[in-house]
Each structure stands twice: as C-alpha cells, then as structure tokens.
C-alpha cells in the first residue's frame, strides 16, 4: 500500500515563490500580533500572577462566576474552561465535573489566591473545590521568560552547528531559516487563536525546533545523495531538489502524519493540564512539514554555490 507512487513528479520548486510569499505574509502577521498583544500575550507563567482552577460538581454558567468576580474587585480576571479539546467538543469520556480556570495576572498585592477563593465562596451559591492553584511572583516570571528565549536561541545555534557538520553550512542555514519560520508562525497562530504563552507552549516550541528538523533532514539526505551520485553530468540543483522532495514524499508525509495522530490524541484527550503543550505541538508539526518542503530547500537554491 502506498500513498504516493514512485513516479511522483510534482515540480515543487516552481511553487516556491508563491510559498515564500505566503510564508512571509504570515510571518509578518505573526510578528505584528506578537507586538500588538503587548503584555497580554504572556500568561501567568511569564507575566506573574495567579491561576486557580475550581471544580464544580455540575455544569456552571460562566457569567455567574464572572459577576461574582467583578463584584469582589477581580474584574481583570480571565475565566476559561479547564478541559482538553475533546471535552470541549463533546467527544471522549464524559465527566460530570465542570472545571473552570480563573487567571489573575500580576498585581502589586502579590499572591491573592486566598482572597479570591474566600470572596467566591461567599458570593457563589454552589460549592466548589480548588483543585489547582498557581502563583508566580515577578522574579520567577521574568526568569522563565529569559530562560525561554535563551533556550530557543541555543537550540537554533546547536542545530546550525550540527547540520553544518553533517552536511554543509548552506544546508544548515536553510534548516535554521525553516525552523525560525516554524517557531514564528506557530507562535503567531497560537496567539491569534486566543491563547496566552505558558511554559507548556514554550516546551512545545522547543520540541518543534528539535522535531521539525527531522523531516528537513530526510529531504536533505536525499538531496545530498542525488547530488553526488550520478557521475556523468552534474544535474541542475533545482532538478535535484525536486527529485529528492518527490522521492521522499512518502516518508515526509508518513512520519509527520503518524506524529500528528499522537499529538492530536493528546490535544483531544490529554486533559487541561497539557492543553497548551499539545495544541502547540500539533500546529507546529504541520507547519514544520510544510517548511521542510517549501522553505528549507528553496533557501538552498537561493544560496548559489560557486
């Protein structure tokens, strides 16, 4: 059984201008979203503040909770469902409980969790239990932000070095450009779909840096093999790249596809605790596959070797 036949012969490189243009547009949109969102793009993990998850025995009307918060001086609090996507869509196991997350970003008062809890207990009719309580102070929040950026930069540099070592520098540049593309667009989509950055999202971004390089390497491997095999006449680079991408199409689609099966499963059924992690991974792997074909290889073309 095969998805693509051996004689697949799509001229991918012809599409590269269109692909690069589209990518640049989305990158611009992502960067704009990043700066436009200002501090609101940072979740509690990075900005500091409180997140409390309340468990109610039955489904709640979120507006009651909203009113109670406003009445007690917590009008800046963000109220969200704390479930995995599957529960939100109604698939998967049925759970009677209704878990709601209340986020309050950094205030000068510091840890306000207890105050919030007491206020809600007196204002709401229904009983609830606090199943999760996070507080991140300003010192730690900033630390996590800085560490995150450092880790991303380190990962890109490490991969630049490794791919240069195993292939050539221009291959490495193509790979790193594709990775940066993936991180920027994934972050953009993440923010545009209304999420706030958390440590889970950051972990996913770093994982994508490490994973997305895989299908890039599959293609590069084949390009290298095709470049140096035929002895008689040196084929044009654009043809080598096209042939390599077509030959490895099965492999690229299948490896990404199987990984997408599992990340989708995580996203649908993994619970609210890893919601950001699994969502970001799923988006990132899709973008990563696209970039291996349409971004990494064209960069090779742009970098004419004399």
């Amino acid at each position: 059984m095969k998805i693509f036949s051996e004689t697949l012969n799509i001229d991918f490189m012809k599409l590269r201008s269109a692909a690069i243009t589209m990518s640049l547009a989305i990158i611009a949109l992502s960067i704009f979203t990043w700066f436009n969102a200002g501090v609101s793009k940072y979740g509690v993990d990075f900005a500091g503040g409180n997140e409390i998850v309340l468990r109610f025995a039955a489904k709640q009307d979120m507006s009651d909770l909203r009113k109670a918060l406003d009445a007690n001086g917590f009008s800046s609090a963000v109220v969200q469902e704390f479930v995995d996507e599957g529960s939100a869509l109604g698939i998967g196991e049925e759970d009677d409980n209704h878990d709601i997350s209340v986020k309050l970003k950094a205030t000068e008062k510091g840890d306000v969790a207890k105050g919030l809890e007491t206020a809600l207990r007196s204002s709401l009719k229904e009983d609830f239990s606090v199943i999760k309580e996070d507080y991140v102070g300003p010192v730690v929040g900033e630390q996590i932000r800085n560490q995150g950026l450092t880790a991303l930069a380190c990962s890109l540099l490490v991969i630049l070095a490794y791919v240069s070592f195993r292939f050539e520098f221009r291959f490495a540049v193509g790979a790193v450009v594709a990775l940066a593309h993936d991180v920027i667009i994934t972050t953009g989509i993440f923010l545009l779909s209304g999420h706030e950055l958390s440590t889970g999202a950051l972990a996913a971004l770093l994982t994508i840096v490490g994973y997305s390089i895989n299908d890039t390497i599959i293609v590069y491997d084949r390009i290298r093999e095709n470049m140096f095999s035929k002895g008689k006449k040196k084929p044009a680079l654009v043809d080598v790249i096209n042939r390599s991408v077509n030959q490895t199409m099965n492999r690229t689609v299948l490896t990404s596809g199987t990984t997408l099966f599992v990340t989708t499963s995580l996203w649908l059924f993994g619970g609210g605790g890893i919601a950001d992690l699994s969502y970001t991974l799923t988006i990132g792997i899709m973008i990563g596959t696209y970039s291996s074909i349409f971004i990494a290889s064209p960069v090779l073309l742009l970098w004419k070797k004399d």
Partner: protein
Amino acid sequence: MTESTKKRAWFLGAIIAISFVCLAPTFFAGSLPEWWPGRKIKLGLDLKGGSYLVMGVEVGEAVKSTLSNTALSLRSELRKEDYPVVKTRQTGDDLLQIVLLNNRALEEVKSYVAKQYPELVFREVEDAGVRVTLSYQIKADEALNIEKLAVDQAIETIRNRVDQYGVAEPTIQKSGANLIVVQLPDVTDIASVKKTIGSVAKLEFRLVATGKEIEEAVSLPHRDGSTVQVEDHPLMTGDAIKTANVDIDPQTNEIRVGLSLNSVGAKLFDRITADNVGRQLAIVLDGVIQSYPVIRDRISGGNATISGDFMMEEARTLAIVLRSGALPAPLTVEEERTVGASLGADAIQDGVFSFVVGAAVVLIFMVIYYSKAGFLAVFSLLLNIVLMLTLLSFLGATLTLPGIAGIVLTVGMAVDANIIIFERIREEIGTGASAAACVEAGFAKAHWTIMDSNITTFLTGVILYGLGTGPIKGFAATLCLGILTSVFCALFVGHLGFQMFRMRNAKGELSI
C-alpha cells in the same frame, strides 16, 4: 539463524527480562517479596497531588540583623571599657553607627573597633558638637558570607518545620543564590504549612523599661493593639529554647505554649529572673509583644510559659516554629504550584487514555500499511515503551503529566524511524535485489538519516531539560529517554526481527 543473530537475540531477551524486574514494583505493588530490587516509578506532584514552593530568602535582612546584634555587643563592650557611648545602632542597608558623648576617646574607640571587629570598615566621623557619630560599613565579602549562611540556615529550619508536619518525602533544595525549592507531596492544607514555613519566629525576652532606661527604650506593639516601652536589647533569645509544647492551664482552660530551656538558657533565665524580681519581662515574637508578666520569683527550673489569648491552631504553629528555631531572614513566596489529588488522578487517567488512543491509531496504521513488517514495528514500539518506563524507574526520574505527553510523543517519533527504514527497503526492492540484500541495504542507508534526526531532537531535549523546572523537566526527560530507546528499538530490534523471522507474504516476497 547465524551465531551472531542468536547472540543478539539472547541479549535482547536479557534486556526484556531486566525490564520486567524493574517495572514489576510499579504495576504489582502489593504482591512482591521484600527482596525484589527496583522501586515504583516516582510520580510528580502534578500527578499525585501536592505543593511546589519556591521561596526567596531576604538576605539583606540577615545582614541587617547580624549588624544589629553586633551593635548591641559593641555597646556593652565599649561601655565596659568606660568609653562615653551614648548608643549604637544599625542604619541603612549595611551601616553601623556609634554615637559618642564627645570626642574624648575617639581614637581609642576607633582602634578598639578596628582590632575587635575587623569585618567593620570605618567610613566617616561626624562631629556635630553635641554628639560624635562614627559610621562603619560591613565588608562586602563578610556580607556575602552572612547571606550564604542565611540561606543554608533557612533550609535547615524549613526542613525541621516540614518534618514536624509529617509530610512524606518532602524535598528542600537550594536553587541559585538565594532561592529555596520546597516540594511537599500530599499536603492538604497548604495555607497553614506555608505560614509555618514562612514565619520568621524571632523570639526575644526583654525587660519592660522603667526609670532611666526609658531614654533608650523602644516602643513595641502588643498583640492587643497597645504599645509598650521595652529595653532595646534582648536579655535572652529563642536560641535558649530546647523545646516548646502546647499546654492548657488546668484552672483557666487557657491555651498556652510552654517553653523548655536548654542548660545555657536555664542558667541565663535563672539569673535574669533573680536579678529582676518585680519587673515585667516582655516576651516578643517577631517584634510583637505576646505578654509581659511580672517576675514574681526567681525561676531556676528552666521552664517558661507564653500565654496570650491563643487559639489552638496558633499555639500549635507557634510551638512548631519555636521548636525548629528562628529563620535568619524573612522568606517571600516567589512561585507556588499546588495540585489537588483529585486533579492528579484525573491527569493520570487522561494521560493514559490519550496514550492508548494515539498508540492504537498508529499501530493499526502500521499493520495496514506495512503488513508483516508492520507487526514487527508494533512489537518494536511496545518494547520501546517498556524500555522507556524501565529507564525512568531505574534512574529514579519523576513522571509528570507533560512526561506522559513525552511518552505519547515518543510513540509518534519512534514509528518515524521504522517508516524511514521500511520506505528505504521498499525502494531497494524496486531495484530487484534479493530480499535479504534489500533489508540490509535499507537498514544501512537509513542508519545515518535516523541518527541525524534523532540526535538533533535529543540535543533540543537536553536544552529543554536544563531550562525547565518540575513538570517541563519531566517532559524533556521522557523525550530524551524515548529517543534513546527508539533508536535502539528501530535499529537493533528491527534488524534482529528481520533476521530472525521470515517476513514473507503468500507470493514469497518481503511483506512490507
């Protein structure tokens, strides 16, 4: 089967056996004999419930506090030498000042301090006519020393206090220059534990000021809201306490905290009470007076009582903190993550369910797409998971919810290696070579592709492990371990599988 194949098969068999031994404690907890090696896989706080606290030590306060004590000692020493010292005080962040009545003994005082207190660096002298003020600053490396000691001492004190709560397997560790990470599994009442841990608990015994002491007295607040003038130096501190207990006065039913003093403290208390019968002795906790009873008699038994309108919970907390000693500096909570046990249980359930669904889809796909070779991939994958869990258990690594996500991700990534090999073999079949040759060529040519892609993911996993804390570290750990086992399973086990079993379909071709 060749000799080499047999040897490798035995090797694999041994590894599988070891895995079962290591994993048995996790899955068959109750029914194993005592001598069984290995232990259950450790669950992170987000899976079993508990609290994770990062506390910052306000080291600046420790320096100030040390200087205050130095100021007090210096004053009594200088007065014993008959120098005209009006007072000494700690000011600013790291300054100590000596106020003299006049400049009569200025040089002698300076040389006394220089000789006895080398950690103080002379800064300036201010001669205002009426008084002469000498300013000293503490040496920078001495201050650093105090700060470092403060953090170490805070860790010990926290450990003592946590021990008294009977928390199972708490972890208390230094993190960076002045942060302490405290992990408390299965804590139900985190609020009171936090309060106990964070309470400075500086206990002092000071005489209430009368007569001429009023000049040097300080005003301290009392529990009930009033203020009382007390002498500005403590006669005895919390160091003198051996142990503290809650007791109830049989006559008044009042809840009190009884103190048992150590031998040095008992002698000191004996002398204090003997010298000051009739005067009031204030018991000060963290700058607030709890009570100031009159000393009726000399007390030589080494026992004292603090009574002051306590509620039971308050008294218990007080007893705990007094037993464990004072914190050298106040603590601030920099980060706190608390997960209730019910959410933890749900998280495990969700994690396992998403794993089963994800793995099932992938495995069914592999069998449909690659026929018999697909079955080999299924076996390889299951073995992969077993080996991953074995490594987790063997290394004593902690499994967190993101860690389970890492395992699920490994399922997806492990299959990639198989796909790369199988696709390569399929290509080789197209060239018409013998089945065995195709298999060998497939494995050989795919080898470096697999290594390259996994090494890069591994490197980013290592960086993520270095950066992350708690749950994210768990994710990075399972990711990295998963890569190691995946490469082993795809290359070693996969290869062995092809050599050991006839993977042919009905037509005699490779079933792939």
